[in-house]
């Protein structure tokens, strides 16, 4: 008949839904990123500190006296991972700023959500991109450095009392990558311009870092750490790797709570912003 009834029709998929539905989103976004030479250069640059630390380990292994100036122990990994934080910011801006922003601008979210994908699949897919990028700058070089340290100085690093290093590297990398990724994705969902989202993300992270420094300068209190995401992540790393901090140390539970709240807030933002249709009043 030429005129159809406008009643509800159930969606009847031809086959069962895949279990891991978000993976194609992650895979395609990564493929597009890895085609860009500038991005590959940034990834390579993120491994430069790894080389510096590797040389440090080698030098101290060959010349133990150098260990007095450049100590090589569990703290080395914490300092290395804290230093990688800046690369996660750049990777998140380069690779993540446009992840949701571009889809909002072009209306591609409608295309995604008209497939058998939920909003959760979409967010997981996009988050997967950022997580993999940030882990490639934290977990991957962290583990390779640990492996190299085990190879170069087995007497020291294969000892049982340093066995915590591997799990600490994994945990710290996951926390750093997870928090930075979810914040970057949430900021990306707040704008339709990748450039504005990238700069907004950087401005937020840098601005809060400076604010934390200023408040710390006013009150000389470790609590100022809690104002900044970067400072909170560094505090977690310091606690995990036993790095002494200036002034009175802050118990790790406080920065961990703040980061958990930030992550939860970002997920709420994503829940509100990732929609197929936006109502313009």
């Amino acid at each position, binding site marked *: 008949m030429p005129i159809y009834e406008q009643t509800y029709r159930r969606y009847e998929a031809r086959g069962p839904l895949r279990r891991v539905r978000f993976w194609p989103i992650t895979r395609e976004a990564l493929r597009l990123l890895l085609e860009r030479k*500038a991005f590959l250069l*940034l990834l390579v640059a993120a491994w430069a500190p790894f080389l510096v630390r590797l040389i440090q380990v080698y030098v101290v292994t060959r010349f133990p006296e150098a260990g007095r100036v450049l100590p090589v122990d569990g703290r080395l990994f914490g300092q290395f991972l804290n230093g990688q934080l800046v690369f996660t910011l*750049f990777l998140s*801006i*380069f690779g993540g*700023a446009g992840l949701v922003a571009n889809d909002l*601008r072009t209306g591609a979210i409608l295309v995604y959500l008209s497939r058998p994908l939920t909003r959760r699949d979409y967010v997981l897919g996009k988050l997967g991109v950022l997580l993999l990028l940030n882990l490639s700058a934290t977990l991957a070089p962290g583990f390779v450095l640990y492996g190299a340290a085990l190879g170069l100085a087995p007497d020291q690093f294969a000892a049982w009392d340093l066995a915590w290093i591997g799990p600490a590297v994994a945990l710290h990398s996951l926390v750093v990558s997870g928090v930075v990724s979810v914040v970057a994705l949430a900021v990306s969902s*707040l*704008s339709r*311009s990748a*450039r*504005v989202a*990238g*700069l*907004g993300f*950087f*401005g*937020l992270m*840098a*601005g809060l870092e*400076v*604010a934390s*420094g*200023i*408040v710390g*300068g*006013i*009150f*000389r209190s470790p609590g100022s750490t809690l104002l900044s995401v970067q400072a909170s992540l560094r505090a977690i790393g310091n606690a995990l790797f036993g790095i002494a901090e200036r002034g009175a140390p802050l118990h790790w539970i406080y920065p961990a709570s703040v980061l958990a709240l930030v992550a939860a807030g970002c997920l709420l933002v994503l829940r509100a912003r990732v929609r197929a249709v936006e109502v313009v009043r």
Partner: protein
Amino acid sequence: MAFWPAARGVLGLALEGMIWSRRSLVMAVLLGLPVLFAIVYRAARAASVPPQLGGFELYGHIVALYYVRNLLPLAALFYATALVADEVEGRTLTYLLTRPIRRGSILVGKFVAYVATTLCLALPADVLTFFLLATAHGASGLGSRVPDLFRDLGVIALALLVYGALFTLLGVLLRRPVIPGLLFLFAWELVANLPGYMPRLTITGYLRSLTRHRPPEEGLGVLLGQPEVLPAALCLGVLITLALVFLGAAAWIFSRRDYVMEQ
């Protein structure tokens, strides 16, 4: 249409969009944070929690560290790289390019809109912060510090002008100016902390010399000591020249480039 009336027309069109945007809300919050610091400082003093810094000293840290070294360059990067890029991305550049006006006037009009917007956000915040902090220990001595306020307002305006001109040029030259801009700000500008002639190769070096505030250096800066203070006339001359050169170059490139907007 003559250059300056055309630029004024573009200014009117751009200014409204810049001021009433989400971007400006974010910038207003970030540039206004020092006011919050000042309120917290005064509240701490009122609650007999002794701050470690004097009020005016804190104000100096805020101007030198928060504004000049971080937020103002970021604000310039935020707005100035987008002057042309926003129109290209939004595909509205065609409307401007099909008016009987010189292309340079489009860029100049938008640049003036950026300067006006950021000055409207930054200057009142700085003035408020100054009065909240400089009077935290009482109003005596305030009169002698007001010239510093005017000096700082001038430095803020100059920072927005010169960084804005640089990032306008970057925005016109490069398709993706954000990462190079960030690398310039947080890698190259660190050269200002090195001894000798190196600070003269940075914008921060000149701006820092113009403010009277000298916050203590941290990290590697402690090893290098306080950098050289350059003469004010030299700083003003170099910064204004740089701003004019960058903006002129940006206008020249913009007027010769053709833009293919994605469909």
